[in-house]
């Protein structure tokens, strides 16, 4: 999250807007942000929005779908979040995405499981007052961030196969692989397989992701496989992607669409 310099603005009604600066460390060949970075924005904002929406309970992300439109280059991606349902056990939040706040850039929907607030989070204090603020940035003495996947240390072993070590930098508060880092390995596995079939400009534009289990034992592997055969001359590939931990437990499952 710190790598991406996310910003958020909280409104009086509880709704949230956020921004992701788009630079060459996260840009795709067509200039928009790569899906993994969009997922970090959406996940972070969704988590923030869920705090007041689920109160006094807590909410964990259960699944996420992201659908991106071609936008070309932009300065920043904006996301506006709205609660679509608050039930006893689930919370559904939609994010409208736009390029520089003016051009449609896609949609995302997240489902959260609503649970009693865990003991270790009972006394947590989060600033929910209205206003715009940074969601944390790199300290000034840090070198400038490099390409997103390199910073996360996502390693492509071969097309469709990537690994990531579980380090504090990619873990969440309970020491498991951060939800948005799941999307990064899924994106990386998808793109690497897409590049094999579609060429170097392949990018992930659509993802349906279910979180299944905490990934607490690294390294984690993401394995992408094609749904159907690649059609010569076609510019898209449909994939299913599984993320396993070091003990071969399936921790998340996704389907993606890659285009070139």
């Amino acid at each position: 999250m710190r790598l991406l310099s996310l910003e958020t603005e909280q409104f009086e009604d509880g709704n949230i807007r956020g921004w992701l600066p788009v630079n060459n460390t996260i840009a795709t060949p067509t200039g928009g942000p790569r899906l993994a970075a969009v997922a970090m924005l959406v996940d972070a904002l969704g988590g923030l929005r869920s705090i007041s929406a689920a109160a006094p309970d807590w909410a964990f992300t259960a699944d996420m779908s992201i659908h991106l439109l071609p936008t070309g280059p932009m300065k920043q991606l904006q996301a506006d979040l709205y609660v679509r349902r608050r039930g006893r056990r689930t919370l559904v939040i939609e994010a409208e995405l736009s390029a520089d706040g003016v051009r449609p850039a896609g949609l995302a929907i997240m489902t959260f499981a609503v649970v009693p607030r865990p003991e270790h989070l009972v006394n947590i204090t989060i600033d929910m007052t209205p206003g715009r603020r940074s969601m944390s940035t790199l300290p000034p003495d840090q070198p400038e961030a490099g390409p997103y996947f390199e910073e996360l240390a996502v390693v492509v072993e071969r097309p469709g196969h990537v690994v990531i070590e579980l380090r504090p930098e990619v873990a969440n508060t309970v020491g498991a692989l951060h939800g948005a880092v799941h999307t990064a390995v899924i994106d990386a596995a998808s793109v690497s397989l897409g590049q094999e079939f579609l060429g170097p400009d392949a990018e992930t534009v659509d993802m349906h992701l279910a979180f299944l289990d905490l990934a607490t034992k690294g390294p984690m592997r993401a394995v992408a496989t094609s749904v159907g055969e690649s059609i010569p001359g076609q510019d898209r590939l449909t994939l299913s992607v599984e993320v396993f931990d070091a003990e071969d437990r399936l921790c998340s499952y996704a389907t993606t669409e890659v285009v070139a």
Partner: protein
Amino acid sequence: MAGFNAGEGVGVAMYLAMPIMEIGDGTAPLPHTRGEFCVQDHLVDSEGRLATGLLASIADSIGGMTSGVACLPDWIVTTNLALRRAPDALAGPRGTGPLTLDTRILRRGRSSVVGRTDVTDQAGNPVATTWMTCAVLTPAGGPPPFSRPVRLDHREVPDDPIFRTRPEEFFALEAGERPGIAVLAVSDRLRNPWGILHGGSVAVVLDAAARSLVTGVAAPAPTPGVIVTDLVIHYLSPGRVGPVHAVAETIGTRGTEVMVRISVRDHGADDRLMALAIATVRTDLGPFATDR
């Protein structure tokens, strides 16, 4: 509540009859099932291909049933369903004819279940892949009467001729006030055993709305060559009264694909939002082909 496919009294399950058997001896905590869907002429397009709404409906049936079996003596309600069609099975003979649905439970938690269904044609070619999440609940009156290993091999279809009509007629679809709006009249045959609208019915009406929007033709007219290729549905509240209105809006385009957002509301229940869906509609596969 997700449709189970036990047949009797569940109109959608009888209309889309699919023998289902559990793989193994029925002791596995995470059940694995297989459904054999025998395509009938009135269900498919001129090439013999099932529309995405119907594909989602049969995936919901077997996925819901298998998730429910994983939770016995509790049962489940579908909360969301994601589906992608294989791009090489959208035109031509691939993906037509009888279909096999192979369902595995990926996770069974205390409050939710996630299942994956892979759909193949008779030659074993992938046709679609879906995953769905269900919430676990304790239904009043108990769960459906299943014994394991599950064997559902009924094929009997009621004498009522409505069960042999085209999907538009069976699901009582009508045009809304403009292309992109499809209306479904809630009748008893479209309800599940708990009296609420079957999740598959929701998939069918929103598929019709999405294709109608993109073609500019009033729903539920056929849209040859225009197909919803991927779809994610979030079921937010049950449909009880009707009519149900599915309203589609264009979010944007990518080449020959149109991204569509569909909201589904129960008009007779204060327009309550029942479902929210995002679909990609491909337009380059037939006579509606466009050069976007």
